[in-house]
């Protein structure tokens, strides 16, 4: 084996070895790397109990209610299979709206509702002008209300 081939082999083995190690580590941390849990997972008890976790899904249409004169809001988060009521007190981000993706950070209450300390809006990958969005909606292709992220697992 020429020295050059030896170096080629060394570099190749280093890349393969490190990739394998990182791949296995990521595989092992799979659950901890989950940025949010879906309502179905939370109801099934897959989310950590008594600890803070993130709940992700869509804000159900028509479910947002505001207490008058307060910053307190309640809304339903759905993954189109199951739904969880969420209550939150604070300022909501610009992109928060019914039918859009949302990630709430907080605790699951004993009564089965979710108390959020922080609410983040999840943006989807669709970019278009307002007129186009209106046109699509008229033609019966709602652009809002697509499932946010991989809620399938």
């Amino acid at each position, binding site marked *: 084996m020429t020295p050059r081939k030896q170096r080629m082999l060394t570099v190749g083995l280093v890349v393969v070895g490190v990739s394998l190690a990182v791949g296995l580590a990521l595989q092992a941390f799979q659950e901890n790397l989950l940025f949010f849990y879906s309502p179905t997972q939370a109801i099934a008890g897959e989310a950590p109990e008594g600890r803070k976790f993130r709940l992700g899904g869509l804000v159900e249409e028509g479910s947002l209610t505001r207490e008058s004169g307060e910053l307190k809001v309640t809304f339903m988060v759905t993954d189109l299979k199951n739904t969880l009521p969420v209550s939150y007190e604070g300022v909501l981000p610009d992109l928060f709206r019914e039918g859009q993706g949302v990630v709430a950070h907080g605790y699951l209450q004993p009564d089965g509702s979710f108390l959020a300390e922080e609410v*983040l809006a999840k943006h989807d990958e669709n*970019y*278009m*002008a307002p007129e186009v969005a209106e046109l699509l909606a008229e033609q019966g292709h709602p652009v809002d209300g697509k499932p946010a*992220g991989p809620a399938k697992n």
Partner: protein
Amino acid sequence: MWNWFHKLASPPHFYRLAGIFSPWMLWSSLILIAIGTYGGLVLAPADYQQGEGFRIIYVHVPSSYLSTMIYALMAVTSGIGLIWRIKLAHAVAASAAPIGASFTAVSLLTGMLWGKPMWGTYWEWDPRLTSELILLFIYFGYMSLRASFEDISKADRAGGLLAVVGVVNLPIIHYSVIWWSSLHQGPSIKKLDAPSISGDMLWPLLLLIAASTLFFGALLLYRVRAEVLDREHNSRWVQDLLGEMPGAG
């Protein structure tokens, strides 16, 4: 073909070629950036949900794209340098690192500025954001590792190995939004035939990605020329070159 390749790897030849190409690349990239910026900031309509705030995409996406592409270039040239012992390849990798780190920082900063009003937070330990931050740290690690060696060939070898190892982060950055449920949205232009972004918003973006790449190419050539001069300052051709310059001697 091989002959051409070997000639390219010779420092004086590369120095001359780069000197011819770099001004052309710089000026054409600046003109294209001006056109793309006009298209993105003036001609493109506001987004149906984000309003005018979406326009940060025209800085964020090209710099994010370049942050990973420059790293890929760094890893490939480092690999070539390690295997074939080509010093010029190491010079290219070393010159690319600070540019790549700058684009990574711009990508992170513009993302944070957009994240505050849109998501509701500057920073989240989301897989995409975290892996991009790790990329910035790998760039910093590479540069400080190189700087810690007196001997440039040792710096080449150690830095080269780090650059090659760090390449595992690139697929993680790319697939982070697909593998894990993340706050960051998925790609809008993964398939060119049916992008999730409308055409009047898309063309300035594609133009700016191409123009920024060209701009990077020009910067890289300027930096590699300086790096080559520094590395070869004792060699005959650099001495001759300096002798030709008026006022030198």
